[in-house]
């Protein structure tokens, strides 16, 4: 008690922060866990008895299909982000310092621009009578407009477009930390370009890959508005299911269970990320 009085400032700050986090993070999340094991009630949203029905419902073929499809789209999004982002970060880290700063700036400009508006902008390009179809027909590559909007592909394009910077930034940071000396050492010991890439570059940039995957994969399952705008009624994300359960169908236990599914996915990814960092000796001090 004596020490508390000695440091009123410290005590006040800690009470404020802990209070905020307990009240607006911990308790609400416990409520969600609680909600997931209760029974749906049309009047009060939730009622007793406690049961695991909502979790069982996750494996209902109807929803399982949606989840698997959402996972597939998120997986494809992550894959394309990695495919585009990895060489991108690599090329970026090889440029001069000044140019790097400028290009990073240009990369985060879209991130600071309203994501709804950007998703909507894609619609202008992808629509049946949109710009891409018009351009392709004008040059005579196609006779009939392609159906691009309201497809799975459109949702994936939208997600990649919104989430690409989140893949590139952690990758860029590991490429920045990758010491040129290590690549030189590898060549010196007789490894060619490919061997060096596989044995040195890839393992050393793995934490960045995992961080990027984490930052892309999870939002790619949650960003319901992208599926709403670009995917039409059939291509749903886990986020759409949760939103529908909470705001339209009013099945809270099921929505809560679906959200816990995402939390579990996050926990798995966080764990994998930590593991990969520990393998490198937690930012090896050299």
């Amino acid at each position, binding site marked *: 008690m004596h020490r508390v009085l000695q440091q009123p400032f410290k005590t006040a700050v800690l009470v404020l922060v802990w209070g905020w986090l307990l009240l607006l993070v911990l308790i609400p999340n416990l409520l969600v866990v609680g909600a997931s094991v209760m029974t749906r009630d049309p009047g009060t949203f939730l009622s007793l008895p406690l049961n695991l029905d909502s979790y069982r419902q996750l494996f209902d073929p109807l929803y399982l299909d949606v989840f698997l499809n959402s996972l597939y789209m998120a997986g494809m999004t992550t894959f394309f982000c990695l495919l585009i982002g990895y060489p991108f970060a690599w090329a970026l880290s090889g440029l001069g310092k000044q140019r790097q700063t400028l290009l990073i700036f240009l990369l985060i400009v879209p991130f*600071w621009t309203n994501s709804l508006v950007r998703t909507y902008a894609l619609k202008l390009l992808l629509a049946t009578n949109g710009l891409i179809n018009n351009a392709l027909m004008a040059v005579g590559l196609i006779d009939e407009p392609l159906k691009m909007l309201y497809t799975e592909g459109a949702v994936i394009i939208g997600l990649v477009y919104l989430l690409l910077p989140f893949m590139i930034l952690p990758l860029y940071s590991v490429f920045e930390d990758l010491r040129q000396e290590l690549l030189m050492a590898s060549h010196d010991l007789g490894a060619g370009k490919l061997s060096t890439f596989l044995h040195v570059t890839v393992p050393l940039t793995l934490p960045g890959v995992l961080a990027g995957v984490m930052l892309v994969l999870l939002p790619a399952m949650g960003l319901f508005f992208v599926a709403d705008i670009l995917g039409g009624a059939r291509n749903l994300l886990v986020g759409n299911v949760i939103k529908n359960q909470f705001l339209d169908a009013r099945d809270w236990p099921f929505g809560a269970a679906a959200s816990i599914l995402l939390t579990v996915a996050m926990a798995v990814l966080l764990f994998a990320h930590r593991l990969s960092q520990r393998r490198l000796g937690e930012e090896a001090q050299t």
Partner: protein
Amino acid sequence: MSRWLPKTYLTLVYVLLYLPILVLVVFSFNNSRTGYRWGGLSLQWYESLFNNHAMVQAMWNSLWLALSAATVSTIIGALTALALHRYRFRGKRMLRGMLFVVMMSPEIVLAISLLALFLLVGLQLGFVSLLLAHVTFCLPFVVITVMARLSGFDESLPEAARDLGASDFTMTRTVLIPVIMPALLAGWLLGFTLSLDDVVVSTFVSGPSYEILPLRIYSMVRVGLKPEVNALGTLLLIFSLTMLMLSQWILTRSKR
């Protein structure tokens, strides 16, 4: 080959990244009704945007919300960062961990948990619920920004101040706050932008009494094309760009 290949690749990605934005800006000046074809220059969509009363109201609401959320989260976030940086206390690792988890967890998870809380305690969904939610998801970003600044500064400065007779509080006010000022501004701008951009959390915790811009846009773009959105998007783009340049300017200036 090894010289131009990376550059060509980078350029290509940037073109793809900016193409939709460019199209949006160009079409905001389009005089055509159909939305997909170019019909000459016009400012009609800007005009109809500003004549849309509900839209302008939503804009003001959003601005006010973002200002409040950024300010509150900057104050709490900065204090938290200072505590994490300076003090030893039980549960420090847990506090860090929790902030990290908040930052990483999907927005929608945060959204429904807050919705559950607000309904449980009977809070009317509106400005207050939006503010609490926005501050919560901005908080970790502010903490990270300020922590980064603090970790790069001389540990002996606070000790020197204490040695010269400043109390803990006075030292914080006269030494630490000035040092982290640029980070505070950057964190504030980040919070402001995150708040202004948020769709997911706001969808859950806003009520009919307080309509904000992203939700207004959302309801407009869900079906079909609304050329006003092009105009609005262009304005938002200019706004964000200004803010971003401001924050970059502040950060680079402070490094000297």
